[in-house]
């Protein structure tokens, strides 16, 4: 079972390593981890996607809370959320395939951000399903390289974590 945790931490050096080390030390699996500063420059937000049963999730949450630099841990999996991830996909392209790729990109409301004689780079934003779908379609042309940011998420409506 997948869970999405929003973790507010002190924006200080070493915090990311404390958090990621905790996961590996205790044998919890991270699917993705995205981190960036929040509206308060002293606080960073980590969005961590983990899988495991309720017992594992409870332990992850409690262990994270024990870190002095962790301010708050919220499991937002149960809430209505807006979730986004950004991926950059460098796909093999030549004159014969370029237009077909552009069509796919359009359907997904993705963007071409770089073009070269033998490749194109696509920027796509969306939830996990959307990114996986476009990746699947582009694979036939040959994906040379891909980078994903990992998911970030906010709860819908006025509620904050």
């Amino acid at each position, binding site marked *: 079972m997948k869970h999405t945790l929003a973790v507010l931490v002190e924006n200080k050096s070493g915090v990311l*390593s*404390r958090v990621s080390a905790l996961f590996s030390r205790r044998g919890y699996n991270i699917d993705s981890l995205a981190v960036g500063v929040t509206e308060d420059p002293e606080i960073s937000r980590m969005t961590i996607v983990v899988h495991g049963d309720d017992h594992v999730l409870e332990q992850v949450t409690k262990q994270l*809370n024990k*870190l*002095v630099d962790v*301010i708050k841990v919220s499991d937002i999996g149960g809430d209505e959320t807006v979730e986004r991830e950004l991926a950059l996909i460098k796909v093999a392209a030549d004159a014969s395939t370029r237009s077909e790729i552009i069509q796919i990109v359009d359907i997904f409301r993705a963007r071409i951000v770089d073009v070269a004689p033998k490749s194109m780079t696509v920027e796509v934003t969306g939830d996990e399903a959307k990114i996986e779908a476009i990746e699947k379609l582009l694979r036939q042309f040959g994906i040379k390289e891909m980078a994903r940011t990992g998911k970030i998420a906010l709860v819908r409506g006025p509620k904050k974590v």
Partner: protein
Amino acid sequence: MTTGSTEKVNGARALIKCLEEEGVDTIFGYPGGQIIPFYNELYDSNLRHILVRHEQAAAHAADGYARATGKTGVCVSTSGPGATNLVTGIATAYMDSVPIVALTGQVPTFLIGNDAFQEADITGITQPITKHNYLVQDANELPRIVKEAFHIASTGRPGPVLIDLPKDVQNAEIDFYYPDKVELRGYKPTYKGNTQQIKRAAEEIANSCMPIIYAGGGVISSNASAELVELAETISAPVTTTLLGIGSIPTEHPLYVGMLGMHGSKYANYAVQESDLIIAVGARFDDRVTGKLESFAPNARVIHIDVDPAEISKNVKVHIPIVGDAKQILKSLNKYIRCCNSGAWLEKIDHWKKEYPLSYSQVSPDVIMPQFVIEQISEACRDAIIVTEVGQHQMWAAQFFKYKKPRTFITSGGLGTMGYGFPAAIGAKVGRPDKTVINIAGDGSFQMNSQELATAVQNDIPVVSVILNNGYLGMVRQWQELFYDRRYSHTFIKGSVDFVKLAEAYGALGLRAEKPSEVRPAIEEAVNSGRPAVVEVIVECEANVYPMVPAGAAINEILDPEGHADTPCAMPDLRAATADRVLDLEEH
């Protein structure tokens, strides 16, 4: 200087002022290149510094000091090898939730990351074994950081905190100002238990016919012994303790059933297994305690009182968790409970106590049994603080000494660190000079930090080490005997050293006992000498610690050749059980 005003000082001097503000009077340490500025300022200060002979000993001494006094212990080392030598001591304190602050020198900030001479990433290295740690980048932050470090180390679930101090930070001038408050939005331990939960616990207790209280080190660190005993007496419940919980209730209290788990008393383990309610206080259901989890106390509901929410339901499913300080929670729980009649239950336990007492047999009249030595220490030094090393002697010290008060049994439980006892005893004696402090040691363990005889002699710290010399790394030998077909691979250490001469070489008193009649006089002579002393006792070489629950077995599957054969959970045939267990061990 008092809090509030400011004064220009360098970082090193600031650090000393911070320590004074925290009420520190003694620190344990060892100097080196990157911590010289601190030592330079220390030269002019009133802080007592105990110079050890190995940094590991500084950490253990700070730990022993903390456990004996309840205050936060402090140790200091230089960067690189000095800092890495602290690691075992820090890990030991972490596993047993002991408040210490470790101060380490570090290469100057502009060299960090350069693989500079004697640079080690000690904050990285100690991340998993500290409650928190700091690399000070700016001397102006030092007072705040020290304040936070002491706060974090000593509150909530206590533990070690490390502060890494680059040399340039120690030299930098700052306006010294000691904050009087800490602001840590990510650290707010809960102390007061939830009243609703406490009431539910009281109900649960009222409905139980066979309750047992299971007390751990948390009872001692929160100074909750009186409340614990009150709870036990009010509801007439038996009390078992973990290794670290020993001393939270007097050994001779009629409700005490001894330690549970791997080397616990049979009656404690039977009582836990049959109980219908476990009241766990400041204990964490460690694998040495529960044995095979699936078979642990199958009929029991569980109340778990702990300051660390992450311990709740970590290993055993808890029905009523109460997060907070053991003392406060027990205090308020005691208001809601009333006497409940466990007459039949207590009778049953008393019957077990009589039927399966902790015992040992004298193999021949001239041989000194190790258990006998502990009994002699118990009679000769009733109010002593007992510190131990790790091995068979540690378990015998847990089983056969009669403890009267909390903080009188000091041992490395979670990490099981050989070499802990002697330096920890030195720390305990420095913290409690009024007490007799005895280190019960094995011949193997003592050799791991015997260089600290120099520390004890130089600083005139009269600690007595009683070495149970069995010529073996006895605990490992016991496992080899029971589970590895008596193949004593590399556990024979007889004749390593003449411990009497070793003591004398350092200027300490050395005594030896080779016959049972010599034990008591030697112990008394050592204690009365007022000097650091070593008593080497030549004990039966193949004595085993029993009862024993083999690793991975249920805690009522007990090996005990000393006990009676007609146990309710009949004693398994030793050889057969051994064969089984070997398979089991290999699977794990």
